């Protein structure tokens, strides 16, 4: 039982990271119905930037800020050059350009920082706490709290501000939103910026937690984000958050009780299972069926 709780705890911590990344990803999908394949690679690049700043001895709040700025800039650039020209095409074309843009980012990161895995340059939160029979590290608690705070902030923005209303209008009916005078380009840019920023925080926490910064983490991150979003209900921010947590816990339990090395497979098989059995996700709304 203790073992189970421990796995659960680990799963929740990892899951919170997935949740943050997934929410950032889902923002873009929810508003634009776009599979943002560059999500992970943008935050990977931004994380590397932040880590590089830390290497140069910059204080960590500034490094984080640097990372956030990078992710926002990259997110906007991707939107401007890879997505906006295809705004009127169907969903496939931007998905493919997204893949292309992701590859470009990966190549650039590889050239700048090399293919090896770097350790995370800050030692954070190694202190351990015992809560309810399971052992939590300080870092895990930081992660859980950060995730909760960011999610709440995001929820407030989307539900209660005019930005949020604009985003929802664009999701529901882009042409009409345009006609109504909603500043579409600016709102879309904001969506990307916020989504990338959330991903960036997730990425930083990921690197801190696993003590690893490497180019491949971007792609893995995108795939996990997608799996989490699908599990929870694609297009729904709450669903993405829940999906991330579920994903983390499922992975931890599977790895703990079945076999290690198959974490990714667990994620994708769960995702495929949901798509077949309940395509709207665990918390999603009804979906349209096709012939």
């Amino acid at each position: 039982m203790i073992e189970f709780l421990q796995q659960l705890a680990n799963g929740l911590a990892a899951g919170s990271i997935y949740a943050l990344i997934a929410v950032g990803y889902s923002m873009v999908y929810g508003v634009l119905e776009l599979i943002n394949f560059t999500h992970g690679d943008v935050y990977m690049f931004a994380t590397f930037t932040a880590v590089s700043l830390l290497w140069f001895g910059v204080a960590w709040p500034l490094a984080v800020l640097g990372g956030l700025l990078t992710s926002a800039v990259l997110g906007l650039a991707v939107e401007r050059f890879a997505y906006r020209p295809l705004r009127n095409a169907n969903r496939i074309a931007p998905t493919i350009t997204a893949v292309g843009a992701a590859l470009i980012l990966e190549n650039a990161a590889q050239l700048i920082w090399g293919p090896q895995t770097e350790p995370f340059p800050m030692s954070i939160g190694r202190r351990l706490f015992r809560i309810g029979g399971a052992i939590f590290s300080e870092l895990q608690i930081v992660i859980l709290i950060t995730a909760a705070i960011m999610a709440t902030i995001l929820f407030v923005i989307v539900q209660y501000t005019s930005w949020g209303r604009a985003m929802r209008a664009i999701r529901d009916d882009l042409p009409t939103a345009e006609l109504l005078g909603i500043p579409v380009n600016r709102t879309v840019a904001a969506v990307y910026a916020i989504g990338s920023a959330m991903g960036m925080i997730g990425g930083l926490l990921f690197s801190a937690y696993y003590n690893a910064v490497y180019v491949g983490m971007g792609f893995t991150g995108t795939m996990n984000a997608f799996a989490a979003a699908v599990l929870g209900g694609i297009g729904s921010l709450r669903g993405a958050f829940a999906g991330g947590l579920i994903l983390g816990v499922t992975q931890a339990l599977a790895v703990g009780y079945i076999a290690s090395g198959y974490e990714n497979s667990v994620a994708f098989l769960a995702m495929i299972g949901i798509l077949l059995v309940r395509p709207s996700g665990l918390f999603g709304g009804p979906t349209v069926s096709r012939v």
Partner: protein
Amino acid sequence: MTQRLRGAGPASARNRGPAGKGLSASIIGPSRARFGWFAAVISACVAGTFGLLVPPILCSQYEVHVLTLVCIYIPLVLGQNLITGNSGQLSMGHAAFYGFGAYTVGILGGVYGWPTPPVLLAAIVATGLLGFLVGLPAIRISGDYLFIVTIGLNLVFIDVVTQWNSMTGGTSGIPGLPIPSFGPIEVRTYSDFYYLALVIALLSLAVVIAIVRSRFGRMVEAVRDDSLAAAACGISLTPVRIAVFVVGAGLAGLSGAVLAYFIGFVGPTDFGVEQSLLIFEMAILGGLGSAAGSVVGAVLLVGVPEILRFLQPYRLGMVGLVMVVLMVYRPQGILGKVKVTNLIRK
């Protein structure tokens, strides 16, 4: 004046010119049969002679090596094109089928020492079966989700292959595969492998063209263009979509088998998502829906990087750039008649 519908009527003689009979007409088209047949035979002879004689005699060993790789990629891209171009299904994990064929050779040919012809057959059939298993759930998952799902399956394949040490040799793979032989004929030298790959590429091309130009091929394209209308004509969608997966996967398995024998080794590195993306790009660059386009795509994206070796560190980015440029400026690729952008009806 009404008349009952009959088989033949005066209308048939009207606009079709000398209606070609026979196989050529079936594949090339009745009114174009005469001229088309002649031109096809001549160009096949020229290309065949060129392909058979020139490389081993005039080209360096390295160039023959590259040409062999091109020929190995051709069935691979043809299969991807069949699934994504002709059938409109965004399958992205094609390298998993490629790898499955290669590992079939590694296990049956390498570990168990089976002779070559049954191993090749097993590679095609087993990978085709895998294609069937993938195709089954695939038809229930739409458009861009399928894209991600198939990438996920590719990753699952890599995971399995890397972890299942006892069967696949894990990350080290299976080294020391035997020389392939067909009865007394051994495939040893660079030229030998080139001929093998060339013959297989040509056979695959013939098979794909036969499929695409048949009534079945028309059904596949109809289902892609408008599945509702196709169903309203009585066409059963599921078997059509799955059959395409089976053939596409089988072709990829064949490619993988040849690759394995060619390199003499099987390992997980060649069969990941990066490879799938490359194959996909070959298909869209050449042009979806066009078999000739697939050949062009393979030639360009295998040949050019070899020629421009100095661009090696930028390869990934170049692949990405080509994707973006293609989608924005020419989504139908070079020879395609289907735009990727049209693959989903909104």
